């Protein structure tokens, strides 16, 4: 007998806070990112084979899994470095074409991106991206809007992309109170 397929209802579980570290080797120009649970991000330069890694940036972030509240299935998202909202900076970018197409239905496009270097790290599968998209859409009970999450492969050029990355970094509060 064929098992009945669960229509999953996702909940965020196994949340753990840490930092996403971006480092660069000034010998080779290679940029890499990784997640650490250390309370204070490391700052020291270190050598790894031919590379001399230096910290460029650290952003507070978190890791999580999604668990189906009906069948208990857990999907891990260790490959996910972050999410960013497309703001339509390049009309020739495939991402912007999708954004513009979906905007009239109030469907907002986000990119799920993994760790660097992209070709050396395991990236999110399309199945996991769909699960993540489902999670955010299932929660939008009263809203008229939807979320579309796509792969980083849609971005034409990360270096010139102005998408809004959701991260705790830099001076997030840029202004003083009025009159001061």
């Amino acid at each position, binding site marked *: 007998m064929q098992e009945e397929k669960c229509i999953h209802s996702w909940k965020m579980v196994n949340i753990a806070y840490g930092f996403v570290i971006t480092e660069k080797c000034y010998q080779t120009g290679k940029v890499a990112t990784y997640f650490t649970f250390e309370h204070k991000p490391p700052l020291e330069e270190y050598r790894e084979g031919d590379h001399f890694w230096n910290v460029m940036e650290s952003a507070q972030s*978190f890791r*999580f899994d999604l668990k189906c509240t009906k069948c208990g299935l857990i999907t891990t998202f260790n490959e996910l470095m972050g999410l960013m909202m497309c703001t339509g900076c390049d009309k020739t970018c495939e991402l912007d074409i999708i954004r513009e197409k979906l905007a009239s239905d109030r469907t907002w496009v986000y990119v799920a991106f993994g760790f660097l270097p992209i070709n050396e790290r395991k990236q999110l599968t399309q199945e996991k991206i769909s699960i993540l998209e489902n999670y955010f859409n299932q929660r939008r009970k009263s809203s008229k*809007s939807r979320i579309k999450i796509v792969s980083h492969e849609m971005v034409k050029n990360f270096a010139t992309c102005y998408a809004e990355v959701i991260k705790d970094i830099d001076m997030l509060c840029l202004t003083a109170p009025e009159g001061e």
Partner: protein
Amino acid sequence: MKLQEIIDKLDLKILTNIEDREVEGVFISDMLSDVMTSAKPGDLWLTVQTHTNTVSAVNLIDMAAMVVTQGKVVPQNTIELGNRYHVVILSTPYTTFELATKLVGIGLKAT
């Protein structure tokens, strides 16, 4: 309680276009990581953060609105992004604590 009712009762300043909707609860934090893991759709988010990437978090979580407290000036590019993505941004001279107290006073609770 409807968003417009809260705005009227607490005299919140409207910085973007507004769409009235039900406010389910209140969430207070100044960390986006916190918002992403703990805020709920329909929440009213109280924060001092004014960066443009707050808009992407509010939009993704589908919060009812964000209220920038303590009279912080919200940059024009954050307001423009809010308008583009139908994210309601409000502000108030009250501190986060004062506003939270007033929200409890009119019957809102944390979800």
